């Protein structure tokens, strides 16, 4: 359970699929416009999946479904891509070893 003032991430549909504008590709028109934002929990306590209110860093109140407590960044440099070292080897061969450009 998340307690009041815990930093959390919430989710809400801004527009349901039926509310979306006309000039859209079909695949986009068939899904809702979704939104994610972070803030401090305003409810006394809440579980993942509950509808809650948060106060964002600028002081705005937003309502949505509680998705994550203490959200962290998990982005990274991805899996090994062998082509990158291959680019290096080929470039150096042309520049320094006389291989045809």
């Amino acid at each position, binding site marked *: 359970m998340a307690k009041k003032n815990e930093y959390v991430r919430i989710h809400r549909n*801004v*527009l349901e699929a039926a*509310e*979306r*504008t006309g*000039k*859209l*590709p079909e*695949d*986009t028109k068939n*899904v*809702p*416009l*979704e*939104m*994610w*934002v*972070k*803030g401090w929990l305003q409810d006394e306590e809440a579980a993942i999946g509950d509808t809650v209110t948060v106060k*964002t*860093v*600028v*002081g*705005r109140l937003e309502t949505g479904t509680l998705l994550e407590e203490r959200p962290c*960044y998990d*982005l*990274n*440099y*991805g*899996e*090994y*891509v062998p*082509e*990158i070292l*291959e*680019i*290096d080897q*080929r*470039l*150096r061969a*042309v*520049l320094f070893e006389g291989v*045809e*450009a």
Partner: protein
Amino acid sequence: MSMDRSYAAVTGRKSQIIRDAIGVDYSKYEKEGIIFDYEALMADTGYTLEDHIRIQKTYNVGNTPVFELHNLTELARKCAAPGKGARIFVKDEASNPAGSFKERRAAASVYHAKKMGYKGVVAATSGNYGAAVASQAAMQGLKCIIVQECYDSKGMGQPEIVEKARKCEALGAEVLQLTVGPELFYETLLMLEDTGYFNASLYSAFGISGVETLGWELGHQFLAEYGKHPDVVVCANAGGGNLTGTARGLRKAGCNAQIVAASVDLTGLSMASDGQFNRKSFTTAHTGFGVPYATDPDHSDVPRSAARPLRYMDRYVTVKQGEVFYITEALANLEGMEKGPAGNTSLAAAFSLAQEMDRDQIIVAQETEYTGAGKHLQPQLAFARKNGIELKFGDPAEEIPGQNIIFPAKPSLLKARDMDLNRLRRSLIKRQAAAAQGRPLSDAEIAYLMEETRGTEEFVRQTLKDLGL
């Protein structure tokens, strides 16, 4: 009483919301017929080039170094005909506080917002501009909300955009992340209305005139260090602001360099498609923005865009995703500079264009951008492969956006490919002339279209004739 927050109601209040949030009455720039007074809009910011230089100096923006890329120049010469191969330079815009040239655009917007008494700024952007606005808002003591398009409907985030969200938050901004769709502007309007913050639009005159310092610096740096102006300046082109501002600044510095626009070729991919969102590896500086914004600048979040690239463009080339990744790796491995891929779009083009030029000439790629987890070729390529995109070596001319990424098998296969600039000019004329609803255009309107396109009178009249107008 609370306002109606439905899509129709909010977009219906758009003019008033934008007017309140930017403090500019755009209607006064509308003149006879289809004419819009662009120079009056630019002059009315109240900030001269000297003011921008002073503001940017105060907030640690600009005065970025220019570096000569000796090894890339040597490599280009190996690909070129004898005697050919201009000196290649890059302007290291990544050394701005938030890591890109976009901070030049943000500085005056945030400064102006503060001067006008706004408590915060809102910007709709998935790109480096978000971090730039967040950085300037932090420095100048305003609150900041960034609205970005980040995820597809499966909740899969584009790594580059996820990183930009992290950076914006690191710099103190609130970040609203959305799934794919142009209704991002609806959410932005709601934010502006709810908070009363300033609309730090990418396309306001404050933002575009702020980029003039980049061109101004280029002109002066080359004169001081190399005794002459650059011959060609390559600008990555998406919304057109980078090219517009840079070209205006170069002119003010007395530099007549040829201005070349460069975009990553994403032909065939829809920018509003949920399914295609994560099949591209570049989220900016691509044709999906570059072409529509060049031919129809006024479909942005302000009534009239200050970014009007066809007024300044001498040439427009495209490069492939595989070519930009390739040059990004070359910059790291041959020049010792690790930078973000999208910021190297102009460098990829410059590498090819240098081969058409004489050895004593100078070509400049006018930006770099910061790099980091997510916003780097390794995670971007790993992400592409995970999404079913084939990675291979070969001739990039055969690359199909959304299907494969082809790295040049050898450097001479990296080619900047010319777009038909007259086709873009005709497209702009067609759109703007449509506002006349079939009425014959006056001489003044023809002259306006000549300015909008850098076209001759004969070209504009012939285009109108071909359109049956």
